[in-house]
């Protein structure tokens, strides 16, 4: 019997959503796709379409207006899926903690599998996070 599930980690397609971060982590995610870091050699495609995604990269401390959108996107991704919180503010709220329009990290709304720290997270950290996410994806 062929174990289809182990191929999950060979072809992770990424959906990226910004829930109110400062763009620092977002441009580092773009830098990850660039020739020096080249995420595509791990099979990563930046799909931009929740229906075809496996890994959900979220940046930002979850502002009130992004709340519903994040939930919608999360529910549109077919199982199995992993959520990677990129950046300090996405993990805990970071510097934006307790500001009046934020919810202190996305784990107040959706389950997070991998926390990537750093302000801003460097591309190496983000890649580490994605590799970690692949291990979790295999187990799901």
């Amino acid at each position, binding site marked *: 019997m062929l174990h289809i599930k182990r191929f999950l980690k060979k072809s992770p397609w990424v959906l990226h959503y910004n829930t109110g971060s400062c763009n620092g982590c977002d441009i580092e995610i773009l830098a990850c796709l*660039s020739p020096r870091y080249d995420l595509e050699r791990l099979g990563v495609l930046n799909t931009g379409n929740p229906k075809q995604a496996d890994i959900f990269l979220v940046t930002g401390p979850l*502002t009130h207006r992004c709340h519903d959108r994040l939930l919608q996107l999360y529910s549109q991704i077919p199982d199995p899926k992993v959520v990677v919180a990129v950046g300090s503010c996405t993990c805990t709220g970071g510097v934006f903690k307790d500001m009046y329009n934020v919810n202190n990290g996305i784990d107040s709304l959706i389950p997070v599998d991998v926390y990537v720290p750093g302000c801003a997270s460097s591309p190496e950290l983000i890649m580490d996070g994605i590799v970690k996410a692949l291990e979790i994806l295999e187990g799901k």
Partner: protein
Amino acid sequence: MKKTITIPLGSQHISLLEPVRFNFSCENEKITDVDYNVGFVHRGIEKACTEKFEYKQVGYVVARVCGLCAITHTMAYTLGIEHILNIKTNKKIDYLRILMLELDRIHSHLLCLAHTAENSGFEGMFMKIMGDRELVMDIQEAISGNRVQFDFVCIGGVNRDISTECEKLAFTNLALLDKKVDDLIGKFTSNWSTALKYKNIGALSYDDAFNFNALGPLARAAGAAIDVRAESSILPYKEVGYKMILGQNGDIYDRNLVRLKEIKNSILMCQNILSGLTEGEILVKFKGKPNGESFTRLEAPRGEIFYYLNANGTNMLQRVRIKTPTFSQIPGMVEIFKGSDYADAPAILASFDPCMSCTAK
């Protein structure tokens, strides 16, 4: 009868880095009306600056308004508070500050060019520019210790001195980048498909640039000589070789060229600064608490950034007002969208280099 369709762009879309929602009302993919929603990133930084953080910390908080022009935010705040506290910095500090501002401008412009290329379906160019951009990211990392969000500027000076190895690395990388930018200018001017995609698309006329208060490369591409670097004397830009770069038509093509030429100018400034650096202290001591108000303007990669500070003699500021370039340009952007094709909308949007986290704070 023409049927009007509404095409949403955002808040999550592959061509967007940040959440912003545009609703394009289109007739046959021709945009007739635009509805915008820019408040997705509103976090409440202005309030936190006056209630949660002391004035010495605020510089690092406002850096998180926007990751792309973080140094400009810190810089503008620092200049404002230094004006209130009456701190005079020396030449070395000014030079180091301009160096970082210009490096930041180079990487931001390169990112914008890459993003415009990507959004017009030009993946090869995106990869090429992103590859070249790593050169300047290396310099930033060597000087400040972080790639983006380097908290380099502090009240009274800068946090790190520049070592001789960094200087050497910066010289080699900048010289290399200079050649690559020349190459890029050639590629942007000679490619058949980019000409179709960029020429006369998303144009802003000279008069509209003034009427809609356009700023930064958007205005300069239309031929309007609007640049805070030329209108402000806080930082010694004229000493280091600043030159205003103007376009003519205000279309995407001109915006790209203005950005590329500004990168060349910034590289020149950085080289001048690095060769003209003198020995000196990097931090000026200061005493007392701020009391008074200040208005500071500074040129971010996207245009004018404005800080209003009001302090009342305590550790907490009374009011921090941040005005960012994209914020005042949105009515102008909406005007440009009208009448262009939806197929061009992502490329036009990227060529504005919009920064929503700046806009919504």
